């Protein structure tokens, strides 16, 4: 009689089918799946110490290729980054290594602000870090510091000049070390997490092949900084993991969380960011136009290289404008859906052919 459990079951089955998930039914096997997924939480200090001594990364600058971030670390980093607003914040990550992957188990914030102008921002936070690590070890978190993260609110996930020098220093003295950048503004605007993990090449090293990185739009005032240093580091693949208890909790959380999903209004929070992006695009367009004007009169002997540059410049601008538009449209879609759901019903109306709202009405009114 009560369809409530069945619809959620159907949804879950559909989702599992679509994602090729092998379901574990019997408690025995499910506990083994749990044990396997929770195995990552075990800290084996003997194996870690051995790895530290071997130093396989010393010979290969490209040694680490993957990063695994725990659900907890991701949540903490994003919340901390967002709480900083438009100020860059930073923190440290704790974890361990596993072959060619760096595993980030936890993260904590540092009481330092504005990392973009100081190389040794970390020096101020050493005391805090030492205290925190000590208390953590006592409380049962045995991992070491394995990297640092900071936020670039609104201007994308990449390493600036200061970041590159900081990271190169770290990679000399504190290996293995990882740099993670989070953009909380773009996360909220796009509806998906903007995060990047990087490691720098040592001084003078030329990477054998040019890595293809995912395109992202960078504001005009930062684009020079980006361009100068973008060859000095490479990005690592990020995957996430969570424990069995985490996934159980998160599944159940959905029962209460759907309200927040429906009530979120991305358009309201990010107005000035969008305005900033559009004006930035306008400036880039002007720049592109100037280049275009030059080449038209600057004779057709202009090397084909330059023509290709402007074209790709204009194409980039088009792509960026499409991206902003898409995000705006998504935000508007949420608003329109909410309007239809909650605003278009009227009291004591004859029941129209609308989804489910007016159904209970006649019951109570009579």
């Amino acid at each position, binding site marked *: 009689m009560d369809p409530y459990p069945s619809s959620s079951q159907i949804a879950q089955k559909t989702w599992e089918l679509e994602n090729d998930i092998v379901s574990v039914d019997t408690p025995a096997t499910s506990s083994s*799946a749990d044990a396997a997924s929770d195995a990552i*939480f075990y800290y*084996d200090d003997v194996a870690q110490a051995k790895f530290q001594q071997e130093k396989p990364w010393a010979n290969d600058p490209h040694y680490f290729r993957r990063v695994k971030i725990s659900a907890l670390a991701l949540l903490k980093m994003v919340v901390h980054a967002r709480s900083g607003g438009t100020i860059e914040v930073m923190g440290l990550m704790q974890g361990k290594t596993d072959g060619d992957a760096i595993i980030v188990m936890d993260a904590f914030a540092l*009481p330092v602000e504005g990392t973009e102008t100081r190389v040794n921002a970390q020096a101020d936070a050493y005391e805090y870090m030492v205290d925190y690590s000590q208390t953590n070890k006592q409380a049962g978190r045995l991992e070491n510091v394995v990297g640092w993260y900071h936020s670039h609110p609104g201007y994308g996930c990449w390493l600036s000049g200061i970041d590159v020098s900081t990271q190169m220093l770290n990679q000399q003295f504190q290996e293995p070390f990882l740099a993670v950048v989070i953009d909380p503004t773009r996360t909220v605007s796009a509806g*998906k997490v903007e995060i990047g993990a990087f490691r720098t090449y040592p001084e003078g090293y030329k990477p054998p092949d040019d890595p293809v990185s995912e395109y992202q739009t960078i504001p005009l005032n930062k684009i020079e900084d980006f361009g100068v240093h973008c060859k000095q580091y490479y990005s690592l693949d990020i995957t996430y993991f969570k424990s069995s208890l985490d996934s159980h909790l998160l599944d*159940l959380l959905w029962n209460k969380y759907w309200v927040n999903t429906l009530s979120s209004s991305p358009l309201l929070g990010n107005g000035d960011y969008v305005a900033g992006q559009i004006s930035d695009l306008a400036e880039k367009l002007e720049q592109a136009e100037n280049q275009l004007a030059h080449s038209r009169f600057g004779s057709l002997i202009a090397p084909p290289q330059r023509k290709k540059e402007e074209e790709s410049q204009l194409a980039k601008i088009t792509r960026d*404008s499409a991206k902003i538009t898409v995000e705006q449209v998504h935000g508007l879609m949420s608003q329109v859906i909410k309007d239809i759901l909650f605003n278009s019903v009227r009291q004591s109306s004859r029941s129209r052919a609308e989804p489910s709202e007016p159904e209970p009405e006649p019951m109570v009114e009579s």
Partner: protein
Amino acid sequence: MASSSSSGLTFKLHPLVMVNISDHYTRVKSQMNPPVTSTSCSNTNGNGNGEGGDSAAVKAPAPPPRVYGCVIGVQRGRTVEIFNSFELLYDSATDSLDRAFLLKKQELYKKVFPNFYVLGWYSTGSDAEESDMHIHKALMDINESPVYVLLNPAINHAQKDLPVTIYESEMHVIDGIPQLIFVNSSYTIETVEAERISVDHVAHLKPSDGGSAATQCKFLCPLAAHLTSIHSAIKMLNSRIRVLHHYLVAMQKGEIPYENSLLRQVSSLLRRLPAIESEKFQDDFLMEYSDTLLITYLAMFTNCSSTMNELVEKFNTAYDRHSRRGGRTAFI
């Protein structure tokens, strides 16, 4: 021991706290039962983990440990919002939490989050126990009315509710002796947008693989991802309303006795529709709508001019007017 709270405080819990507690518990449990050797009770699973393999000897795992910690957050008036938490040491000799450690950690957290105060403590287990009151009282000098957050780590797939309960302490007279007992309080889940997005992101991962398959679908089509999440939320809304509807139909048919308080609640809920109807809202809404349409128009323009530019460039390359042969030449 747990009855309904009457203090009138509303509690808001952030998902970060739950993930924190769960992580603490998993860590401690995993250190106690190392999965490396074959002493773990694992059957063969298809997962290519380095260590998990066939089990020769099945050893019973140690009973799940209890972990303790402190919750911090903000209290504004009658609303208590729990934002974050950290671990604490439990001293079994004195049956209390290590005070020096607590103060040290609190100091560290104050530096980074100056607005947060110690609101209470957390633990894992299935029910609040008598011994917990001892710890609870010890915390009362930091916060006059601390909260006790209890997480039940047993994974029970038949469960529909979050296994998290929040207890407050109240003075009740039992057998003529005034005593502090734990009373159950209700809470809501509160979140900020960034937290919601990351929780959404990790919630859709399957624990075994790195989540690459599921997340790739999200990355490839952000429209699909966005609409899917809204769709699932609306489906939940729909199913909940159907439950109410069936209940009310049954009440009308007389199968269930009338419950006036519920009827009042449903009635007040329905009177809140439509949600907003004022002129001002319509104006703002339409303005936002037209803004978005303008942006789309602008993007289309940019796209068109870019395409036109490409066309002109290609044309110029193909039909080079200034070439020595003059006039039209075929593109070589």
